[in-house]
């Protein structure tokens, strides 16, 4: 086991190479010193004020109250850190997890927990079954990163083009006044090019979100179980010349890990089966495309799984390509529970 710290090393996750005891001791000392520093300094400040021996910098006013605030924050951070460190020392990961589980079993809390008691770590499907369908039992909610992409594209488009416009105006003014600033002129060219691309991307995203009509997926039953079949009803509205529209059942592993100070999330697709694909058809504004099909969950499918850092997620993915439009994709999460236990008589 390595006993010395490497100078240049990017730490990953919770794995440590040194002694746990020494680490805990160091952590406790750090927070203890922080707490002492905060409490002693606060006591000094208050005492000095009461005794009238306040240094000029900390006379009652902004400086004094700022110092009080800083010292209180030192006390809170240090105190919380010491308590947390003490709780960690001498308690194994299993014991802490068992204590957390007992707390979760309290009736009041269990209703707010993300998974059902009979299927631990399988997420609840309450948010997926609270919207009844028109043709089938449930209309599945859609989740996609679209609004965030549009928001980011809009923010980038506005900020970048605002700066670029000012620079272009300055360049124009320098040229009109016959004192051209060639350095700035050359600098503005890539700025303007990126601005044009930002405009194109923003318009594309805007059209994608406003031009293509909603996709609706309804399902006959929920949650899903391995080996069972379900009916699906798919509807796509809008005014489109559709080249292809495909609905797939997809399973993805999602892992979250810390790398240094970064938190990264990775997804890995481990199952994808096309449920239906329709090519070359027209959707008119008054008449949405509608299709019914069957979905069968594979016999030995892994169930949905949700923990704090890792997940297995099942979803129906509608992926379409319409003429003059970029490819669009909409995801409808579903929950797959483990198969029902078979009886003794099989």
């Amino acid at each position, binding site marked *: 086991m390595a006993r010395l710290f490497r100078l240049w090393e990017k730490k990953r996750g919770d794995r440590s190479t040194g002694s746990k005891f020494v680490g805990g001791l160091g952590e406790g000392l750090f927070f203890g010193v922080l707490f002492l520093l905060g409490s002693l300094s606060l006591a000094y400040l208050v005492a000095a004020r009461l005794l009238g021996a306040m240094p000029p910098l900390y006379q009652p006013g902004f400086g004094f109250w700022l110092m009080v605030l800083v010292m209180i924050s030192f006390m809170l951070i240090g105190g919380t850190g010491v308590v947390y460190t003490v709780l960690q020392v*001498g308690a194994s990961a299993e014991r802490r997890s068992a204590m957390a589980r007992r707390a979760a079993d309290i009736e009041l809390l269990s209703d707010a927990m993300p998974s059902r008691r*009979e299927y631990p770590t399988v997420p609840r499907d309450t948010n997926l079954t609270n919207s009844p369908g028109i043709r089938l039992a449930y209309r599945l909610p859609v989740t996609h990163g679209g609004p965030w992409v549009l928001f980011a594209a809009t923010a980038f488009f506005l900020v970048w083009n605002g700066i670029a416009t000012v620079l272009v105006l300055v360049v124009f003014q320098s040229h009109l006044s016959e004192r051209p600033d060639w350095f700035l002129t050359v600098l503005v060219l890539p700025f303007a090019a990126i601005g044009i691309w930002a405009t194109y991307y923003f318009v594309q995203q805007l059209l994608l979100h406003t031009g293509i009509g909603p996709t609706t997926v309804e399902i006959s039953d929920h949650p899903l179980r391995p080996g069972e079949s379900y009916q699906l009803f798919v509807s796509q509205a809008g005014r489109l*010349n559709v*080249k292809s529209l495909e609905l797939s059942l997809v399973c993805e592993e999602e892992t979250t890990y810390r790398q240094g100070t970064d938190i990264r999330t990775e997804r890995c697709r481990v*199952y994808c089966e096309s449920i239906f694909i329709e090519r070359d058809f027209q959707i008119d504004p008054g008449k949405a495309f509608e299709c019914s099909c069957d979905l069968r969950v594979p016999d030995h499918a892994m169930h949905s*799984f949700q923990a704090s850092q*890792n997940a297995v997620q099942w979803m129906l993915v509608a*992926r379409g390509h319409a003429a003059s439009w970029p490819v669009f994709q909409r995801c409808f999460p579903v929950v797959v529970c483990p198969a029902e236990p078979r009886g003794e008589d099989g």
Partner: protein
Amino acid sequence: MMEPLLSIRLRDQRHPYQPGDALECAYQIDAVDAADIQSIEASVLWHTEGKGDEDLGVHYFERLEQGEVDGQDLRALRVLCTVLPNSPLTYPGVTLKIRWCVRVRAFLRRGKEVFFEQPFVLGSIPPAIPVLQPEPESDSQDDESDGMM
């Protein structure tokens, strides 16, 4: 100083276990003075392995402290029995693996601790295989056959 010996034996060597099955397991710590053992923890738990940070969930947990056990020291053979839950099932994924095990941890004097675990399989989920995701441009090859433009 010799390392203490921890042993765990699953009574029923079935492979794999199914949700609702009873898991019975005997465990023992040996090669250590009774006075050196402060406490023993036995747990049936799942934990994740793979690219993400570890998640851990305890299904069964018992802790025995020195002085709590009547007439016996903590080195005696003990048996734990629990009914296995419906989930999560053992999952041999690509970037995420879920493993089940019985773990026994012994806390010794001077802050020393040792642990041993015996893995077992819950459920029968086959290994996952990564699937390539379609490229956004892949549909454009249909352009030639598009007669509805």
